[in-house]
């Protein structure tokens, strides 16, 4: 499957004239986690390419990180109980995160800088076997 190259340009709300460049990434949920995200296992989302220093909003200080992504997901994508997914800035222990099919522990976890067309997979290991 090819991922459509999207370079959406969105205007910042009032005052700021310059456009915020967006990147498009793919999210996938496994191990029953999709139930927390409108029961959809796959999502295509757009994020600002650069964010502010404290990683709380779009900005011009640094490239967008996984930390920002998780915060964004909690605010915009999560449709069920937030405690089943998030824990502090990260995810609940027992949820595996793969970035382009690689364990996020090898990619810097929350500090990983997201690139256009990245694929991030979240898998819960908590369900019975």
């Amino acid at each position: 499957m090819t991922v459509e190259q999207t370079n959406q340009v969105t205007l910042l709300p009032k005052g700021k004239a310059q456009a915020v460049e967006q990147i498009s990434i793919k999210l996938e949920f496994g191990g029953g986690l999709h139930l927390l995200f409108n029961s959809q296992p796959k999502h295509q989302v757009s994020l600002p390419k650069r964010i502010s220093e404290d990683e709380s909003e779009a900005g011009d200080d640094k490239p967008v990180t996984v930390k920002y992504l998780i915060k964004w997901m909690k605010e915009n994508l999560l449709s069920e109980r937030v405690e089943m997914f998030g824990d502090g800035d990260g995810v609940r222990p027992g949820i595996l995160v793969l970035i382009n099919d690689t364990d996020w522990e090898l990619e810097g976890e929350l500090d990983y800088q997201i690139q256009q067309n990245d694929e991030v997979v979240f898998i819960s290991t908590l369900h019975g076997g």
Partner: protein
Amino acid sequence: MEEKKIRKVTLCDICHQSKAVMKRPKNLQKLCKECFYHVFETEIHNTIVDAQLFKPGDKVAIGASGGKDSTVLASVLKTLNEKYNYGLTLVLLSIDEGIVGYRDDSLATVKRNQIQYEMPLEIISYKDLYNWSMDEIVSCAGIRSSCTYCGVLRRQALDRGAAKLEIDHVVTGHNADDMAETVLMNLLRGDIARLERSCSILTLSEGSPIKRSKPFKYTYQKEIVLYAHYKKLDYFSTECSYAPEAFRGTARELLKALESVRPSCIMDIIYSGEHLVVAHKKKRTTEKYKNKPKKNIETEVNSDGSVNLTKKTDGSRCEKCGYLSSNKICKACVLLAGLEMNRPKVNIENNTAVEGSAKVMKTLEQLSF
């Protein structure tokens, strides 16, 4: 202009050639996919060989739920059986508890596994065996004790299924995380008797001719999930519709939190459990003072204060169902007799409340105003 970035790639700790894709929680080794498969399978092979779980010609039933653990178990055992010539005949054995919206979906997965792994499949249902489905039991006895009923009934159902297939060995997908969780729970509950034997890889319970073993005893849940993900295995993951034991859930979260600080703690807990020897309590004895037929007959008093009236003899059978049991009436029959007394006497025609009551409850739970 897209800025070109040089990405640091971590190489595999074993082959030093391919990109590492995962970090083992056991020893923090970074491995590529191929080396991970190799290490994962070899460790399970070594566990099987060290514990001498199988003999050539054995017929082994895999307790299959359609979940990640049993699906990976079926896949790995098939691979190892072929690779190392175990000479095993493998069969999938599933239990249908009768939980609409949960077990019916997971059984569909097992049926696909049957084809994918070319193994015969036997499904034993509570309804056929006991004339009660779990949905009916819960609607009668309430949701609180659902795990108690289900546990007792499943144990016997697995035994009966294996006996039906003329198999005396059932392997289950219990993994290292499950083992550690059980040790922790027994410790927290002060269940010393269970604590001592909770770590054995092969168990033979009293009154049952069926051996049970856990080849994944030392296998981390994370690696099982990664193996299933990378190999694109077809598994089902939904929590049982009925509330899991609250205490187990809390113990699991505690363990996961501990693991994130110190990943080796799972192996460490199993190690502790294995080497734990409980000091033998002196058996309290009571002298029989009434109707003394002989002198000095002593009765063993159990730790909970109860007394076994019937002598435990191997091969004794339940008076009700005829199944092997150490007591006069087996545990399953005792539970079922209690249920039978409360079964609704009149059934409303076309009553759909029982079937799928779990599903309805789930839907209700999610309603908000």
